[in-house]
């Protein structure tokens, strides 16, 4: 047990890679064997992160399960891992969604081996960002996750995949360029990339060597702040950096979209919480209004954009812009009034919203995938009146949509309410506008449900070879954990909010 406790994080982090290497040596044609190996292997990090959750002590300050390995001593970077309540929540989300996404990919029949390996690499890339306590290691995992995602979109995506995957890659790499440069600047200035050290040194730094004399330290900090912000804003994505997202989400294979929306977007929000707020408290406070503006724009335009779609998957994709806007609104509120109770409430909401959106967006993308696999169309105008044909699917779709809409009793309501409640006294105008945005959230979600399930039945799907089949058991198994958590968090959020809240109070 001692070994397990000491190396728990590195086991979680690297077990997917180990699994990918095992799959590499399996024969290419044993598709079933490869699928099941991947699924079972992806349950290992999930089991370990449940163990992590159980053994995590929320009341303890600072990072837990910390461990440091030598990595690149010459530039003072080491593989320093650790979790607090914030990263723990995200680790759980990632390890939960990956097995579900792999189960959802059982319909993939081309190049299964490469697909599963890429998926497992992707999991390590995402987990690495969440558990890294070294700025350089953070960046390493931040970038490395792009590669498997690129190939997942590029190889298994739909018609316009080439354009979408390249756009995704170049957008994110371009966005990260500032992060790379700012990271280097910090490393050069302080001779360390260790995050706990940088949290102490950088915000209070008054003198920097090697800066041109006409620039003040606060100018440098402002520039570096924006470099960080843009990198994360592209990933979240914030308006106006979101244009890669509808393309990438729409073209990605179903499981790829689940992970993109479920976890990859959270990387951006996590970057705000882990790096931007602690490293740049003053700048974040000063520019909180700008962030709130962008967040509000994302909420409103995301909702409008979503409403305007005729493609079911694009509709869900734009809804992510809308929902992630609330996360950033909460973060902006916390930046504006850090330390106050309102800020804590807003942050609780933001972090819970990250978790919740992970559940509901993954569910929604999966459901879109389920119907796409049967009908080979995502055009909303081709559907209509399908509820009587597929009552179980219809029920699940309505349930998940309601979570996304923010129906009280389901998880989305809890987090969005907390964000709005916390942000209201701090950023009243923006919050008010965002709440108007919620109205449109309702509109586009109902539009989606109406176009697919209700209205006159499109006879095309009722008879003959095109007859729509009901959601199958495997697909229900994918949805079941998501739906259960959606309900549990909606009714009794305390178990997760306790962990989040203690982290929030300790951090901000």
């Amino acid at each position: 047990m001692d070994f397990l406790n000491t190396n728990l994080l590195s086991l979680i982090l690297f077990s997917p890679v180990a699994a990918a290497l095992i799959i590499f040596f399996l024969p290419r044609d044993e598709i079933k064997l490869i699928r099941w190996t991947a699924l079972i292997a992806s349950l290992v990090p999930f089991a370990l992160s449940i163990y992590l959750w159980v053994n995590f002590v929320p009341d303890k300050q600072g990072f837990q399960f910390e461990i440091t390995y030598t990595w690149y001593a010459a530039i003072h970077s080491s593989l320093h891992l650790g979790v607090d309540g914030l990263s723990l929540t995200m680790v759980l989300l990632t390890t939960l969604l990956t097995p579900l996404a792999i189960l959802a990919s059982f319909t993939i029949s081309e190049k299964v081996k490469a697909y599963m390996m890429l998926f497992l690499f992707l999991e390590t890339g995402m987990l690495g960002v969440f558990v890294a306590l070294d700025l350089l290691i953070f960046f390493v995992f931040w970038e490395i996750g792009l590669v498997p995602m690129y190939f997942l979109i590029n190889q298994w995506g739909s018609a316009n995949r080439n354009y979408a995957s390249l756009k995704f890659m170049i957008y994110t790499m371009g966005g990260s360029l500032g992060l790379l440069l700012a990271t280097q600047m910090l490393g050069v200035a302080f001779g360390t990339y260790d995050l706990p050290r940088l949290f102490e040194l950088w915000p209070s730094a008054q003198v920097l060597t090697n800066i041109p004399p006409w620039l003040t330290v606060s100018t440098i900090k402002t520039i570096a702040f924006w470099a960080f912000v843009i990198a994360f804003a592209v990933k979240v994505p914030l308006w106006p950096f979101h244009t890669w997202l509808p393309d990438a989400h729409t073209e990605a294979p179903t499981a790829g979209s689940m992970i993109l929306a479920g976890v990859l977007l959270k990387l951006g929000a996590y970057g705000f919480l882990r790096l931007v707020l602690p490293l740049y408290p003053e700048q974040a406070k000063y520019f909180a209004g700008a962030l709130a503006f962008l967040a509000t724009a994302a909420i409103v335009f995301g909702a409008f954009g979503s409403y305007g779609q005729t493609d079911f998957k694009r509709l869900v994709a734009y809804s992510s812009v809308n929902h992630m806007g609330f996360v950033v609104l909460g973060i902006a509120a916390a930046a504006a009034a850090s330390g106050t109770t309102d800020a804590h409430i807003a942050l609780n909401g933001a972090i819970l919203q990250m978790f919740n959106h992970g559940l509901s967006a993954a569910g929604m993308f999966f459901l879109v995938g389920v119907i796409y696999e049967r009908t080979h169309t995502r055009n909303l105008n081709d559907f209509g009146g399908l509820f009587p044909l597929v009552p179980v699917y219809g029920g699940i779709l309505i349930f998940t949509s309601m979570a996304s809409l923010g129906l009280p009793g389901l998880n989305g309501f809890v987090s969005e309410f907390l964000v709005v409640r916390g942000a209201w006294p701090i950023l009243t105008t923006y919050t008010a506008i965002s709440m108007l945005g919620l109205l449109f959230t309702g509109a586009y979600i109902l539009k989606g449900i109406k176009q697919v399930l209700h209205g006159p039945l499109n006879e095309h799907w009722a008879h003959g070879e095109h007859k729509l089949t009901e959601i199958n058991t495997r697909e229900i198994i994918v949805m079941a954990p998501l739906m259960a958590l959606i309900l549990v968090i909606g009714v009794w959020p305390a178990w997760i909010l306790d962990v989040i809240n203690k982290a929030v109070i300790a951090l901000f």
Partner: protein
Amino acid sequence: MTFPILSIIVFIPLVAGMLILLFPGERKTEIRVTALAAATFALFLSAWVYAEYLVKGLTGYQFQEYVEWLPALGIGYHVGVDGMSAPLVLLTGVVMFTGVLISWGIEDRPREFFAFLFILASGVFGVFVSLDLFQLFFFYEIAVFPMYLLIAIWGWVKTREYAAMKLTLYLFVGSVVSLVGALAMYWTSGMQTFDMLQLERAGFSAEFQRIWFLPVFLGFAVLGGIWPFHNWSPDGHVAAPTAVSMFHAGVLMKLGAFAALRVGIMLLPEGAKYWSWLIMAFAAIAVVYGAFIAFVQTDFKYMVGFSSVSHMGLVMLGFSTLNQQGLLGSGVQMFSHGVMTALFFAVVGMIYDRAHTREIPELGGMAKVMPFAGIGFIIGGLVSMGMPGFSGFVAEFPIFMGVWKVQPWVAIVASISIVITAAYIMRNIRDVFFRPMPEHLEGHISDINVLDKIAIVLLCLLMVGLGMIPSLMVPMVQSGVDNILRLLGGA
């Protein structure tokens, strides 16, 4: 007397080359087997040297051998490796070994081909281990001359004569300029020696160093492909046969950079400090400009050729910082780029041999027929764009850190190249490997053979291994850098 391992490494290829020439030209199998055996032996010994240096945590010049040669002029045969050159010796061994593997199928006069290639390899090994200035020039010319023949005889029919002539003229002019500088050092020092370890202590006046640094450094840097003297290099790469391109971009360009470092910066440190701004400007231009030009190429091989200009620009950029991080990054980058570009040219050659075109718009669908080459090229591409987890990142990151210390603006400008590189690499991976195959190629493309695969796997393992575990190389390069910093006066 200790085991003269470095001399053996230097002379194995030469001896093997001579042996190969003794075979009758039509006994191709024997020739190839001899070549492979010699290359394997050289790889084994160079890996040995590397491993011993690394594992024992050695510092300074090791495995030294000294024999007087022309004592009247102070010329000796003096070899040894330090943390800077040991990785390059290994690199040469690797490129030689993989070069032989992928040239197995050469049908046109393999005897002469391998013989010249091995003479070239001897010259390269010789430069990397030389501790005597005269001897360094001697091996330098040995490395450059066979290049002319290899390109002019076995090269791409359309441009081989032009490219071979251009390359040779550029490099000879460069080396003559450097030689003048070296002679100036010899006479001015008054020490009657060409031994570099002694010349390091010559204490040249600051004025002398300022005058002679530029000719010496730039003369060698021509071979390193420094802008604005890079012009010969893409032409040469494209015209050369595959194994020669691998050698050329993988090792020969490092020869220029390495000699510029060892003779220019280490013997004339004051001059280096005085002119570093100019080198930095040239290098920064090379980095961005090379990437841009690579971006607009439609010829696959020209694209790789210009990407080499861009990446060697990073090596020079690291040199020009004259600080610990920059030099460390350059040391690693020389190795990383050597392996990566050797892989690139190998894959380009495999595709050209089968498709008979290098025009990217006319290619496509290669991943289906040669998945191994595809994966190899993707890994090379990720290294090229500096993706974390691969050796390119381990090299480029410290270079940029070093530049930050000196000129933050240059770091910001040069970093643009990362995105451009990502764009052209991803675009080419998509077009050449994943786009549907054009009809006229359908059925004409065969998979690569097992020797090619071994070469690709070896090169990929080096890049991934170094990227994951930087301490496989960094500590020894670090020791080499410390030595340079000592000469620079703790700067």
